[in-house]
């Protein structure tokens, strides 16, 4: 018998019961797919969250590859009351990575459940399993010669569409709102039944991946950011490759310029002139593609404004850089380009940079790659800005109004600086709302800084909530706190659903603050 990570057990499960469950998992999956040794489990607790890694140690990890295996795992977990935390590719960087919510939960790792079941080049749809990565899907599409694009989030190549969509992540092309461009799911429920949502419930239907709504209550949303089932297949809509793709940037020199630029971009977004998720990138976020904080300052604490200005001057980085793109035929792009450039000129601020002008400039290339759905790993440079492996995305939602942006930036900067950390942020504009994505970066090697980061994030949540702002997604440490912010009625409904769908509470206890 392989040596177990024996000091870690699921909460409330005695050693003997756990061992019996492990024996059944082994009989079901094979010994190689039941991970118990520290050298196999250590990567699941390599976290970026501000708590000791040991707090996220799983008791085991299970590698499943079929729906039938997942059903059997669910039966065993119900029998022994074993909580399982499901990950698809497990690359949810900044939101918990592959770590369970609580120490001792068993990770159900679907990385090898990775079939691309179908890609339809005419309907521009795909049906895939959770372990499929964007790189795998792109390789498949290219191999087949299909003219289809994907819309990845920034870590692109190694993350997966299913996991990112289930956490309601976003990208940078016109298909940036991932859940909106998903269509149909297959879910293993806690009672072992397999649900196919919407048109998937109709025998013989060929509309499962083309019509989202089906009939009656729309159930797909229940399985996003939740712990009501294990998703084993998901349908996606894929963007047809446009004849012309024209990325561009607009640089703004002053912090307060963001108000005017949002007011300019919002109507262009709502009216469809600029169809993609426009990104407004702050100085330090832009700088992190090529620069480290230690290149300029080594003292602890927030980076002084004078240094930020020096970075802007030396590297020709704006206070804000807007990245957007036009897609379509030559005629469409030409018309929309004239609309955009006329608007920028009329505003009197902002310097347009085209792809030709940018050349091989790394930050522009990175953003152009994202807006084209290309694979890129440049985002990981963010973790070297301060170093030390700490990163948490603080991502409040805002109206797409200029006044809201500056207000949120000032509030966030004030709180971050108070705790000796930097504002490293951007906005992703999606017509009426914006995701304000701030990376709270800190050094996990410095226990004092880690504690400050922990307290800072809590302060961000609380002080933003006082202003009526809340995050759209969060890492394991703060899920309960965010659920509180969304109010007792939502919590009660979620708990009611949880008790109905998973009475033994085996699926991901604590996810989004939901328990039985």
């Amino acid at each position, binding site marked *: 018998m392989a040596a177990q990570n024996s000091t870690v057990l699921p909460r409330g499960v005695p050693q003997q019961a756990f061992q019996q469950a492990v024996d059944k998992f082994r009989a079901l999956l094979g010994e190689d797919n039941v991970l118990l040794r520290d050298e196999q489990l250590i990567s699941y607790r390599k976290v970026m969250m501000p708590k000791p890694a040991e707090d996220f140690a799983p008791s085991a990890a299970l590698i499943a590859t079929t729906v039938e295996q997942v059903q059997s795992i669910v039966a065993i977990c119900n029998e022994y009351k074993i909580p399982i935390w499901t990950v698809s590719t497990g690359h949810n960087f900044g939101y918990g990575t592959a770590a369970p919510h609580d120490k001792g939960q068993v990770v159900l790792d679907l990385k090898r459940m990775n079939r691309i079941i179908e890609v339809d080049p005419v309907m521009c749809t795909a049906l895939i399993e959770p372990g499929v990565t964007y790189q795998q899907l792109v390789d498949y599409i290219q191999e087949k010669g299909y003219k289809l694009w994907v819309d990845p989030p920034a870590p692109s190549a190694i993350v997966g569409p299913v996991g990112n969509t289930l956490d309601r992540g976003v990208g940078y092309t016109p298909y940036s709102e991932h859940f909106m461009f998903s269509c149909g799911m297959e879910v293993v429920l806690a009672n072992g039944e397999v649900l196919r949502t919407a048109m998937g419930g109709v025998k013989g239907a060929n509309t499962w991946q083309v019509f989202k709504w089906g009939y009656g209550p729309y159930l797909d949303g229940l399985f996003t950011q939740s712990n009501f089932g294990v998703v084993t297949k998901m349908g996606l809509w894929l963007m047809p490759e446009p004849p012309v793709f024209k990325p561009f940037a607009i640089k703004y020199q002053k912090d307060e310029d963001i108000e005017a630029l949002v007011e300019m971009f919002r109507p262009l977004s709502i009216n469809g002139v600029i169809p993609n998720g426009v990104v407004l990138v702050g100085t330090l976020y832009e700088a992190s593609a090529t620069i480290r904080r230690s290149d300029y300052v080594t003292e602890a604490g927030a980076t002084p404004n004078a240094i930020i200005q020096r970075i802007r001057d030396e590297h020709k980085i704006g206070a804000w850089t807007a990245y957007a793109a036009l897609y379509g035929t030559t005629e469409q792009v030409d018309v929309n380009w004239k609309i955009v450039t006329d608007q920028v000129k009329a505003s009197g601020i902002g310097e347009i940079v085209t792809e030709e002008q940018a050349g091989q400039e790394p930050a522009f290339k990175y953003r152009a790659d994202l807006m084209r759905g290309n694979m890129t790993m440049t985002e990981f440079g963010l973790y070297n800005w301060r*170093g030390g492996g700490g990163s948490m995305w603080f991502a409040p939602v805002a109206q797409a109004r200029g006044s809201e942006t500056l207000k949120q930036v000032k509030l966030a900067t004030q709180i971050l600086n108070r705790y000796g950390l930097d504002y490293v942020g951007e906005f992703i504009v999606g017509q009426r709302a914006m995701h304000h994505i701030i990376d709270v970066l800190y050094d996990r090697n410095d226990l004092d800084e880690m504690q400050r980061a922990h307290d800072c994030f809590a302060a961000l949540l609380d002080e933003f909530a006082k202003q009526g702002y809340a995050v759209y997604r969060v890492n394991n440490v703060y899920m309960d706190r965010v659920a509180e912010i969304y109010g007792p009625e939502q919590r009660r409904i979620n708990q009611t659903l949880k008790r109905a769908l998973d009475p033994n509470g085996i699926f991901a206890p604590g996810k989004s603050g939901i328990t039985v």
Partner: protein
Amino acid sequence: MEVDRRLILNGIVATGLVGLPGSASFASPGLASDVEEAGLPKLRTIALVNDEVEQSSFLQGIAATSQDTAVEIIRADFSVDFVRNLKRLLRSGQSIRIIGLVDDGTGAFIIQMARATGARLPWLAQHAAREGTPSHHVMNAGTSDLAFHSLFADAQSWPEALGSMLVLFDRGHVAATHSLSSTSITPSLTGAFVSFLILS
């Protein structure tokens, strides 16, 4: 003894020595991925480094200890080609040992790629060296943090001692590295790093 001559004498495969022109990376077209084609041993040992680690004494520590082992030196980077080739290597079915000391950004995805491909991590640690004072956090729960901490953290040159220790880590000879004394004239390492031993 100059660094590059010493590395060659200790049998490090010159598929491109880091710090010299033509350093190898996974994106290098010339790097053999087929063991037999390259005439490389069946157990491949790879040192994965980047940035200032390349110029540090980490590789010297590896060279000093790997007397009977050919070690390939690969530069890690943020390219999609590197990610693709690392994944291919870890899934190749070959027996591979990867000893690494890289920056946080690279370490973040390398560790998760090891997990994604089912590789084992007998060693995983974080290091910070700021203003001359290094600190180390060893993540492995299976051994005493303090015991492993002292094996390299107290050395005059911790990167060199770490490199040396990792070569022998899974072979039961860890204690032998403790007496390593550095003759390094390379600059000291500053910043934050991740070290790992990946076995697939």
